[in-house]
């Protein structure tokens, strides 16, 4: 297995684990990712913090991104 394939497999394994656990929690009506994130951003201060993080992500990717694209 090439190094690249190994790295990608790692991401895939983590994503698969998340999907499996999400399915389990969804079936059991337990702590789904949505509920976990909702708890994480509960409260005005936390919400503002995550909002700034989300806005920065968009700025970083699209307004200051270096990907090549038509335009």
């Amino acid at each position, binding site marked *: 297995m*090439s*190094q*690249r394939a190994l*790295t*990608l497999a*790692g*991401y895939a394994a*983590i994503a698969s*684990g*998340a999907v499996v*656990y999400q399915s389990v*929690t969804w079936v*059991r*009506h*337990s*702590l789904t*990712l949505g*509920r*976990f*994130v*909702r*708890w994480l*951003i*509960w*409260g*005005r201060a936390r*919400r*503002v913090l*995550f*909002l700034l993080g*989300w*806005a920065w*992500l*968009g*700025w970083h*990717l*699209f*307004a*200051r*991104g*270096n*990907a*090549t*694209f*038509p*335009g």
Partner: protein
Amino acid sequence: MSAHRPLAPTGRAQRRAHPIRSAVAVAACGVYCWATAGLRPFTVPIDVGVALPAAVVGVLALWGSGDRDVPPAAENQPTLRNGAPWVAVFGLLAAWEALAYVSSPRRNHPTLSSMANTAMGTHAGRAALFAIWLLLGWGLFVRHEARG
């Protein structure tokens, strides 16, 4: 608080959007994403194109958000047992990303950013990622769903 105890039902928002209005809104968002994806970085138009929806989400998220300052019901708060797997997932992702970031060459050790850059190599990919970013912000901060 026992682990995996069924949580209080959250339900869905009672009001249903009008289908035609929803379709128009989705189409308008699609057009906006496509148009914004065609703008070049480090220019005023893309600055405005990103800042505008971010400002709208920010205002909607903080406007009248008093109900969201009420702490979630105890049943909807994570316990050590049901919250730890999510912490582990994000911890593993961060660690794997960091490992790839400090390794080289990048082709053999792709990071999430480098994969995003690859996806953004086309107009369609860039528009799709922009739409995902908008949906993420909307879903996290604006969407009103009955909370437990």
